[in-house]
């Protein structure tokens, strides 16, 4: 561990998340592929934590466990001290692929969560609000095949936000956006998080993005993933990309990822 996490002041409705000694593996053709190795992460309510690690190390797998889509082979995961045994709409995931339902319009895709929970009739305005939030008000009636990759990703974000999650799990949600949209969306994400007070868990490949958004950056090793560093980013929001403190952290993290020689 490089730096100890400073005590964090919870903002509002976010839930705490405790990942305790979680290990996971996949069976591939009879052989066992270990993917997570004794991962422990404790996230305070309302905290924004970024996960960084080499491709294929097991970040998405960890997020699936947090979502409750699969049980871990060993260890436990808890939301607000209650064990996670299955998916629950208080923990919403924005997956690496937008996975919009092609047979539903943008509006119907965003309405999915409310419809599944049976509250759509009384809460229609929330769908409109979420779509406006990601700037797609003009595309409510469009089908997914009529959207660009970045727009689809924004719809996926709106589909998650409409549920007012207590923990928002983001798997490289901005990975497919052009760099300009990406910067706008990062700022948008920060203000959303500050306004709504949810706990955020973000996987990203982009060190700068992690430093711009998160209170803490957790660095994973190669597969099977172990936590190699837990770095507190103690800078006020809104942050500035030129901040020398962030540049120093960035250099440090790239070093941890084995990339210091190139920078």
């Amino acid at each position: 561990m490089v730096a100890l996490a400073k005590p964090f002041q919870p903002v509002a409705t976010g839930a705490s998340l405790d990942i305790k000694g979680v290990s996971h593996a996949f069976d591939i053709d009879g052989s066992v592929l270990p993917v997570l190795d004794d991962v422990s992460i404790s996230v305070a309510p309302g905290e924004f934590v970024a996960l960084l690690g080499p491709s294929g190390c097991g970040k998405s797998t960890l997020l699936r466990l947090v979502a409750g889509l699969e049980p871990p082979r060993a260890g436990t995961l808890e939301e607000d001290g209650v064990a996670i045994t299955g998916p629950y709409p208080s923990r919403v995931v924005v997956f690496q692929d937008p996975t919009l339902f092609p047979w539903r319009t943008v509006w119907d895709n965003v309405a999915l969560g409310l419809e599944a929970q049976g509250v759509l009739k009384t809460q229609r305005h929330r769908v409109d609000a979420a779509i406006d939030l990601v700037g797609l008000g003009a595309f409510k009636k469009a089908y997914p095949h009529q959207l660009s990759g970045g727009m689809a990703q924004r719809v996926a974000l709106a589909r998650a936000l409409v549920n007012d999650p207590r923990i928002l799990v983001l798997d490289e949600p901005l990975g497919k956006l052009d760099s300009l949209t990406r910067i706008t969306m990062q700022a948008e994400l920060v203000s959303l998080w500050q306004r709504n007070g949810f706990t955020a868990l973000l996987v990203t490949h982009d060190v700068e993005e992690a430093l711009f958004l998160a209170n803490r950056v957790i660095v994973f090793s190669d597969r099977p993933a172990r936590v190699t560093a837990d770095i507190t980013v103690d800078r006020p929001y809104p942050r500035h990309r030129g901040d020398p403190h962030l540049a120093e952290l960035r250099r440090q993290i790239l070093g941890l990822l084995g990339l210091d020689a190139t920078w």
Partner: protein
Amino acid sequence: MPTYSASEVASLRGDRETALIAGDGGLQFVSRLRFSITGVGAGLAWLAFGLSCLRWPDIGDWPRTEVVAYTAFAIAGGIAIATTAQAALGKFGDGVQRRAPWLFALGAFLTLWELSTAKFGWLPLPFFPPPQSIVEVYTDDLPKLLDSAFASVKLQLGGYFIGAAVGFLTGVSIGWSRLAGYWVHPILRFIGPLPATAWLPIAFFTFPSAWSASTFLIALATGFPVTVLTWSGVASVSSAYYDVARTLGARPSFLVTKVAIPAALPHVFVGLFMGLGASFAVLVVAEMIGVKAGLGFYLQWAQGWASYNNMYAALIVMSLLCSGAITLLFKVRDRLLVWQKGVVKW
């Protein structure tokens, strides 16, 4: 982020189009002229057909020759008016103009047919009846033909809907539930590939009526492809869709009705299409063998009397009905699957 609104794009394109038209007025005129030449040609072909009916005496006894000739003249006149006054007639004129090459081919074919059957007997009678003898069936035997068509449609619809509904439900359950799959899959493999017509002899004895037996067989022929394709559609739904729905709080019933079924619908329609084809075959065979009504029965009866013109007339009706049914199915599909891009136009 540089974005263009839809209306901006549309106006850009619109400008270019108007510019093209303004710049190429001459070309426009030439292409319009070419179209009306095809139209005039189509009119002449139908005129030729009419004349061919009247110019030579029939080699047989066909009372409808004159009616056919005058109808052909009327059609020729209609085509001529529609293509020359195309602009004034709007949509109808456009439609006729677009079909002018086909109308021409049809007129030419009818002329040739008329000459080689009724006038010079190049083709052997009675196997190749002239156009007027087929028209004669529609004018003189219409009630019987309509009754037959109605009986066929009734039988077909009942069997098809039962088969499609049962097939769809079976397909969804074996695609979704392992237990259902365990029990139904072997039965499906054993019975499904058997042509439904193989059941005919047994079905006609075991069912209380020929009608119920045929309904059952049509349902069977429809049900098999619908079941298999619905099943494969449900089974091939990407698990990512289920993951998304589950994290958003979806219960199993929601996963079936709002994820599995809509995602499987394109497959289901392929099954419905194949089932329709298979069920037509069963319908006709069943009518020929057991049911004493319907177009298949009409065909069989006409064959008994060696009245080939009745058979051709019935075939044409049959083909219109089958084609109509498939068109209808595709219309429904296009309505339900608007979200798909690049679907085949029937």
